[in-house]
C-alpha cells in the first residue's frame, strides 16, 4: 500500500508540474517596430520610386481598397504592410493540426441592401455559389458554420446556445425574452428618413434622432431605463458588447449595443437568419481571398513613418524592417488604411485643431491552444463557440470545427480575452508588461474552471497581444462629428479607409470603408 501511496503523491506532483511544462510564447504584432514611430528619429529616404497610388496598411480595409482598384483595371499601386503578412486583425496562423484565427473569425450572412460590392466579392471567393429563384444567395455549405454552433457553461452545465437559460428563474427568462423581442422590433424599425434604424454599413442607418439619441447613453443605462434588472440579461448584453466591440456594457453606447442585435437582416437560400460563415483560419480566409490577385502588390515588413503632400504629389516614406533601408514613394494618391491614431501620426497633424480624442481602441489578448482530447462536462457537446458564464474571457472557438473529418485526436482552440476592466491605456500597458507565462497561467486557471484537468491535455499555447485590437464605440462616438469628419480626404489626394471610421470593427465595415475610399479616388480622376 505504501508503494501505491507514493505513486499517487508522485502523480499529483507531476500534474501541477505538467502545467509548468506547457510551452507558451508570444507571437505576432510588431509592437517594437510600430513603436519606432513614436520614439525614433529615422534617416531620410535614399531610394525613390514613382507610382500612382500607395495604400498604407494591409488590413481588410486596405486590401478591400486594393481589390477594388485592381478590379477596375488600376494596377499601378502598392500596399505597404507593417507586419510580415497582410490581414490586420483578421490575422491567422497554422500548425500541423489546423489553421486558426488570431482575431476576427466569422462573417454573419450579410444584409441584402447596400452590399452589392460585398456580394461581388463573396461570389468571386465562391462563398456565395449562386442565387435561387427568389434572389436569395446560396452559400457554400462548407463555409456555413456547422451545427452545433454555440454553447454556454452555466450553473454547472453546458446549455445549447449562449443566451442564458439553464437554471434561471421564470422571471429572468421572461426579462430576457422581452429584451429579445425589443431587439427584434428594432431590427425591423425604420426612421423618418425611410432608412433602417440599424443596419450595416453603419453609414446607411437612419439618422432619425429617435435612434441616434441612443448613442448618448451607455447600453447599461439603456437596460436600466427600460426597467431590466436580471443579472443574467446584463451578463448577456455585456458579453455581446465585449465580443463585438471589446468594450463592456457600461462603456458601449446603447446605439452600438442595440446594433449588435438589430443590424443583421441577412437571408439565405440554404441557411436560417443569423447564420455565420466561418473557416478554420477565421477571417484569415477572407484575407486570402481578398489578396488572391494582389500577390505582387502587397509588400510586407514595411514601416511607413511619414505621409505628406509636396508640390501636388503624395510622399510616402517607409522603412524596410528587414533591410533597415528607408524608401520613398512619390504618388498621385494615397489611401490611409490605418487606424486614425496611426494616420494622425504619419500625417503629422496631431497639432491640428480637429479633436480625434474620441477614437479609442480596445486591447485584446488572443491565444491559440493546441490540445489533445479533453474531458468535457455534461450537456451540449463541443461546439464552434464555447462560452462560460463565470469568466472574463469570451470562451474559446474550436478551430477544427469546420473540418469535414469525423475524427480529431487533437485540435486547436482559440481563446479570446478583451481587456475591459479598466481604462484602455492602463489595460494596454498591463498587456505589454506581462509575459507569456503570466498569460499561460491565466488561461489554464480560467479553462480549469470548466475543464478541471485541462492542463494535462494542453500541448502548446501561443499568445498574441493586440494593443489596439479594435475601435471602441463608446457613448457619443458613432454619431459624433469627429467620426464623420475623419474620412474627409486631404486635397483629394489622401483618402481614408478603416473600420474605425464606421465606429465598429467588423469585416463588412472595413470592406465598405476600403471600397468607398477606392471609389472616391477613382471618381475624382
Amino acid at each position, binding site marked *: 500500500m505504501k*508503494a501505491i501511496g507514493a505513486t499517487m503523491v508522485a502523480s499529483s506532483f507531476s500534474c501541477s508540474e505538467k502545467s509548468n511544462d506547457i510551452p507558451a510564447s508570444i507571437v505576432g504584432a510588431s509592437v517594437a517596430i510600430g513603436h519606432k514611430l513614436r520614439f525614433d528619429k529615422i534617416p531620410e529616404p535614399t531610394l525613390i520610386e514613382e507610382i500612382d497610388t500607395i495604400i498604407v496598411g494591409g488590413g481588410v480595409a486596405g486590401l478591400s481598397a486594393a481589390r477594388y482598384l485592381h478590379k477596375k483595371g488600376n494596377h499601378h499601386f502598392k500596399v505597404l504592410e507593417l507586419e510580415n503578412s497582410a490581414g490586420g486583425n483578421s490575422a491567422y496562423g497554422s500548425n500541423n493540426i489546423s489553421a486558426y484565427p488570431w482575431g476576427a473569425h466569422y462573417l454573419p450572412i450579410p444584409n441584402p441592401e447596400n452590399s452589392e460590392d460585398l456580394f461581388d466579392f463573396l461570389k468571386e471567393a465562391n462563398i456565395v455559389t449562386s442565387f435561387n429563384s427568389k434572389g436569395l444567395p446560396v452559400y457554400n*455549405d*462548407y463555409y*456555413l*458554420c*456547422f*451545427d*452545433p*454552433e454555440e454553447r454556454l457553461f452555466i450553473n454547472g452545465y453546458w446549455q445549447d446556445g449562449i443566451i442564458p437559460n439553464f437554471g434561471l428563474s421564470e422571471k429572468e427568462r421572461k426579462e430576457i425574452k422581452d429584451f429579445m423581442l425589443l431587439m427584434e422590433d428594432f431590427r425591423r424599425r425604420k426612421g423618418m428618413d425611410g432608412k433602417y434604424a440599424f443596419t450595416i454599413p453603419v453609414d446607411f442607418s437612419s439618422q432619425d434622432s429617435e435612434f441616434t439619441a441612443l448613442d448618448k447613453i451607455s447600453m447599461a443605462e439603456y437596460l436600466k431605463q427600460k426597467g431590466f434588472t436580471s443579472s443574467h440579461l446584463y451578463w448577456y448584453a455585456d458579453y455581446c458588447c465585449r465580443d463585438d466591440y471589446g468594450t463592456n456594457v457600461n462603456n458601449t453606447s446603447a446605439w452600438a449595443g442595440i446594433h449588435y442585435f438589430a443590424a443583421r437582416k441577412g437571408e439565405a437560400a*440554404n*441557411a*436560417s437568419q443569423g*447564420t455565420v460563415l466561418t473557416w478554420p483560419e477565421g477571417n484569415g480566409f477572407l484575407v486570402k481571398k481578398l489578396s488572391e490577385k494582389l500577390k505582387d502588390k502587397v509588400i510586407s515588413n514595411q514601416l511607413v513613418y511619414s505621409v505628406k503632400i509636396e508640390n501636388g504629389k503624395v510622399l510616402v516614406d517607409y522603412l524596410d524592417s528587414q533591410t533597415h533601408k528607408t524608401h520613398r514613394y512619390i504618388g498621385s494618391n494615397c489611401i490611409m488604411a490605418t487606424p486614425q491614431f496611426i494616420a494622425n501620426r504619419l500625417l503629422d497633424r496631431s497639432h491640428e485643431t480637429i479633436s480625434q480624442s474620441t477614437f479609442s481602441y480596445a486591447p485584446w489578448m488572443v491565444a491559440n491552444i493546441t490540445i489533445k482530447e479533453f474531458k468535457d462536462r455534461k450537456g451540449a*457537446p463541443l461546439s464552434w463557440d464555447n462560452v462560460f458564464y463565470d469568466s472574463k474571457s469570451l470562451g474559446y472557438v474550436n478551430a477544427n470545427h469546420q473540418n*469535414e*473529418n*469525423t*475524427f480529431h*485526436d487533437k485540435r486547436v482552440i482559440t481563446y479570446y480575452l478583451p481587456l475591459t476592466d479598466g481604462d484602455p491605456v492602463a489595460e494596454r500597458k498591463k498587456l505589454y508588461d506581462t509575459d507569456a507565462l503570466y498569460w499561460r497561467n491565466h488561461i489554464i486557471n480560467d479553462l480549469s474552471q470548466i475543464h478541471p484537468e485541462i492542463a494535462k491535455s494542453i500541448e502548446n499555447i501561443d499568445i498574441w497581444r493586440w494593443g489596439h485590437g479594435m475601435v471602441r464605440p463608446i457613448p457619443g462616438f458613432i454619431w459624433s462629428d469627429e467620426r464623420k469628419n475623419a474620412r474627409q480626404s486631404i486635397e483629394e489626394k489622401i483618402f481614408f479607409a478603416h473600420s474605425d471610421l464606421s465606429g465598429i470593427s467588423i469585416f463588412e465595415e472595413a470592406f465598405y470603408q476600403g471600397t468607398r475610399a477606392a471609389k472616391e479616388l477613382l471618381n475624382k480622376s
Partner: protein
Amino acid sequence: MQFFLLLSVFVVATCGLIYELIAGTLASYLLGDSVTQFSTIIGVYLFSMGIGSFFSKYFKKNLLAWFIQLEIMVGLIGGTSSTILFLLFEEVESFRFLLYMLVSLTGILVGLEIPLLMRILKNKLEFEDLVSKIFTYDYIGALLASLIFPLVLVPYMGLIKTSFFFGILNVVVATVLCIKFEKEVKWASVLKTQSIAVIILLLAGFVYSEKIMAFTESLSYPDKVIYAKSSPYQRIVLTKNSKELRLFLNGNLQFSSFDEYRYHEALVHPGMQGLQEHNDVLVLGGGDGLAVRELLKYNTIKTITLVDLDGAITSLFKNNHMLLDLNKGSLLDKKVKVINADAFKWLKENSPRQFDFIIIDFPDPSNYSIGKLYTDTFYRLIYRALKENGAAVIQSTSPFVAPLSYWCIDTTIQSVGFKTLPYHAFVPSFGDWGYILAVKGTQYSIPDNFISNLRFLNHETFQQMLIFPKDMEKKKTEINKLNNQAIVHYFEKEWSEYLH
C-alpha cells in the same frame, strides 16, 4: 514437514489444473471451436508435464529450494497467463504460438513438481505410502479444481482474476515452505524476497484486473468479452456466447453472427441486382468485410474499394480466424482494395474516380461527428462519385423506432437530385431496419430475381420489404445539413424515447 509438503501437493495440483482450464477456456473464447481447443490444450499440457518429469532427474541437490523456486515461477507464469493472452490477442499472427508456449511452460514446471516432491519425501515415508499419499492429494486437488472452475470461479471471478488468484496461492505455498524450513532451504532469503515480489505483482494484477476488465467491459456486455481494444477512433469489443459472435463499437452493436446475413444481404443485393452494370463498387464504412463478402458473390465485379476510418478494424477482420470464417476472408480478396481514411475527406479529394455502386454502412447518426456523413453536402459528393447510371445504398437506422431520422435521410438524399427506393428488413438483433437506395440516372429497375446463394432474400421477400406499414409511413422532415444537423436532433429524441 510431511503435512506441509502434502498440503502443497494439493495446492499445486489444483493450481496446475486451473491454469490448464483457463488456457482451454481462453483459447475457445478467442479462437472458437472449443472441442479442438480443449483437446489440444490438454494434450500439450500433459505432454509438457511429461517433459518436466523427464528433466526432474537432472536436479541433484537442494531439492527443496528448487521446489520452492518452481512454485514461484509457476505462480508468476500461471497467474499472469490469462492477462497476457487477453492483452496479446490482437497480435493475432503469433497468438497461437504464444498460447501453446505458455501452456507448455506451465506444463513443464508443474511436471517437475511431483517427481521432486517424491524425492524430497522419499526418506520420510515408506514408498507405498509415499506414492499413495501424493497421488491421492494430487487427484483430490484436480477434482476440486475441475468442480470450482466452471461452478464458482468463471461465473463469480472471471478468468483474469481466477488466474491471478491461483498464482498468488501458488506463491503463498512457496513462501510458507520457505519460512517453515528456513534452515533446510538454501538461498532462503533470496527465495523469500522473490516470492514477496511476485505476490505483490500478482496482487496488483488481481486488484486492477477487476477494475479494467470485469467492471468496464464484461459487465456491460451480456456475453463474454473475448477481445477488447481501443483504437485511436473507438473502443472495439468482440463478445461470444455459444451461438453467436458480436461486434460492438463504443458499446453499440454492429452485428451478431447469428443474423448479420439478413442485414448484409438486404444492404447489398437489392442495389446490385437492379443495376445494369456493377464493375466498380465502393464501400464506405463496413470494415468488417461482411458487405464485401456479399459483393464477392458476383464474379462480374471488377474492383471493390473499401474506405474505413479505423485500421484496427480492417486489420482485425483480415487476421482473426473466427472473423475470417465469418467474412470468408473477403478483405483479402485480390479485387478488394482497403483504404483507411476519413470517408468524407477521401470522397472530397478523390473526385475523378467514379463507381457503379456505393454502399454506405456508417454507424447511426448519434452524434454531430457522424451526423456530417448524413448531410446533403456528403450526398452531393456521393452523387459526384457515381457513374451516370450508378446507385448508392445507405443504411438508415430503424424506420420503426426512428421514423423521422429515417425519412430525414430519404428527404436529404432526394434533395441533391437522387431518386430513392426506401425499403426495410427485419434483423432480430437490430429490429426492423431501414435502407435507402439512391438512384442516379434512369437505368435502375427493381429486381425480379435474386441470385440463388442467399439465405434471406428472394423475390417475394423483397416485395414485402418495399411496403411501409402505417406506423412507418413517410414523414415530412427537414433536410439534414452541415449547419443544422437536423438528423442528430431527430435521432437523439427518437432513440432516447424508445430506450426509456
